[in-house]
């Protein structure tokens, strides 16, 4: 656990970069320091590994004051990754990653195993292809992967990251973020992550500490920050589209109608038509005998007296969601599909649920009502 107690930083020229911040970051949590440039977020981060000495206040890691430990030993126990990466150009990828294990005098075999393990973890496979390359031979994205692997070198419980994906093109950044979240699932580190990008903060953080002018304005989960901004500054910072941003925090499974009505492809059209009238719906999902989703039956295509089976009039589906699809992607799919509803299927293709605009609206209204009534 990391605990900041009334931490301040005043530079020799009199600038007050950080004005009394108190913050607790529980073990294994991903905490994002967010704010506009010059708000003191990077200074705060660098005070945790003592790259910047604090003027007053205390920082405790697992209850121990960081100034009681030798600063180099402190840093060897804390992973550090920065936007500019700062790989050592005269060392191979393997040597770069082995930096901290070497400082800690790990035996050779253990270092080698660790390097391979880390290269695999960050997706530089096969490891033997990358271990002897030099940083100059890698692309920007690959270099940042090495940077992250190096920060994880000696398996530190804490990771400090200063805009690690800031200088990477948007597509690669998105991918690195996803991969890093997957890695975090696996390694469960306590992470302090600096960014000025609200979208990145919402996507990555368990908690967001929003800072302004050296002060902590709001410290909350992303959902909380979006739903209940503390003041106008937070409201402005999260943006007018905060409801849409909140969608990304929800998964389809939390919103979908489970066990939706459906018809089997082999049923007769008249039966299906009757069912739709009873349910009062314009579309019904069509499934096969095993419950696998096949497409949609449109009520307007049904004419009275028309004989035959459902499969003859069925429209094949164009988009599909899984229970784990983020809601923002699901919403976008719903606009793309002619049906306006979204079928949710599991790994075997079986129909698990149905997402409708009405249901989505209800859920979002629910979480934002409280604030609307203020």
């Amino acid at each position, binding site marked *: 656990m990391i605990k900041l107690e009334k931490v301040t930083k005043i530079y020799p020229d009199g600038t007050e970069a950080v004005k009394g911040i108190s913050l607790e970051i529980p073990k294994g949590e991903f905490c994002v320091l967010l704010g506009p440039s010059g708000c003191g977020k990077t200074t705060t981060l660098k005070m945790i590994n003592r*790259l910047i000495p604090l003027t007053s206040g205390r920082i405790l890691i697992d209850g121990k004051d960081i100034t009681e430990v030798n*600063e180099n030993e402190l840093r*060897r126990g804390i992973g550090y990754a920065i936007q500019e990466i700062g790989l*050592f150009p005269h060392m191979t990828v393997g040597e770069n990653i082995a930096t*901290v294990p070497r400082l800690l005098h790990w035996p050779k075999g253990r270092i080698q195993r660790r390097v391979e393990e880390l290269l695999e973890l960050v997706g530089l496979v096969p490891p033997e292809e990358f271990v002897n390359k030099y940083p*100059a031979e890698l692309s920007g994205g690959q270099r940042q992967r090495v940077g992250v692997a*190096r920060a994880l070198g000696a398996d530190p419980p804490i990771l400090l990251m200063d805009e690690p994906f800031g200088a990477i093109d948007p597509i690669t950044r998105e991918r690195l973020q996803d991969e890093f979240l997957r890695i975090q699932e696996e390694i469960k580190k306590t992470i302090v992550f600096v960014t000025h990008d609200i979208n990145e903060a919402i996507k990555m953080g368990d908690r967001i500490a929003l800072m302004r002018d050296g002060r902590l304005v709001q410290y909350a989960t992303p959902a909380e920050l979006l739903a209940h901004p503390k003041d106008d500054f937070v409201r402005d910072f999260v943006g007018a589209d905060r409801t849409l941003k909140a969608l990304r925090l929800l998964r389809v499974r939390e919103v979908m109608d489970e066990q939706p009505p459906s018809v089997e492809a082999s049923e007769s059209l008249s039966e299906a038509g009757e069912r739709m009238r009873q349910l009062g719906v314009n579309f019904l999902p069509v499934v096969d005998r095993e419950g696998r989703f096949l497409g949609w039956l449109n009520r307007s295509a049904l004419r009275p007296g028309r004989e035959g089976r459902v499969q003859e009039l069925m429209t094949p589906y164009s988009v599909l969601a899984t229970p784990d699809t983020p809601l923002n992607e699901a919403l976008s799919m719903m606009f793309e599909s002619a049906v306006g509803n979204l079928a949710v299927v599991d790994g075997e293709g079986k129909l698990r649920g149905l997402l409708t605009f009405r249901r989505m609206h209800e859920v979002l209204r629910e979480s934002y009502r409280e604030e609307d009534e203020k």
Partner: protein
Amino acid sequence: MRRRIVFLMLLGTFIGLTIWITGIGKLGIYSTFTGQDLLRETGVHLQYVGFAELLAIVIGVSLGVLVSRPWAQKHKISTLVIGAAGMGQCIPSMALIALMAPLLGFGLWSVIVALFIYGLLPILRNTYAGFRSIDPAIIEAARGMGMSRGQIVRRIELPLARPVIMAGIRTSTVINVGTAALAVLVGGAGLGRVILTGVLSRQPLITLQGAAPTAALAIILDFLLETLENWLTPRGLKVKKAQA
């Protein structure tokens, strides 16, 4: 490649000239220096250069490292030290060597100190420039991972600055091979003695007998140090950039 050829042709010419003049033996009432004489003077010449360079490297690199530290830069010590070293080189080489005689007397020490002062600047300046050219993010990453100051200098900064430092040593050495020819003015020996003998006796060929091997020596040392420089450049700095 073309540079190599010019190099070899020049070197061949100088060595050829030296051998030819040495072979002549008699020039009127004068005789040319023997091969043994020349080898001995070349040896002394090399000792001057070697000794002075050794001093200049030890002191130049250490000073360069010191003045590249952040505190030295903050207090403008870097500018001061490098400026002072620059003054040393502003003084014409002949004047500098001549100035040493009243201070340190005639002989070895005057020569060594003068050559040292003269050779110091390129090494000091290049060491400083080499350290300054390192991306600050590299140093920050190293600090952030818990490397001590000494470890950063030894494992990161020195290897990265090495090619630039080596270039400085090369420049300094080549300059000093020429300057060492002036040692004879303060009672030293070396190839300068052969040159001066030629001047005093108005025998251009004897002057050439000292000048040609001096030039050849500079060319050879330049080539050797260039090879060494290449060899000492970390591989990671030589690989072609794969992607931007």
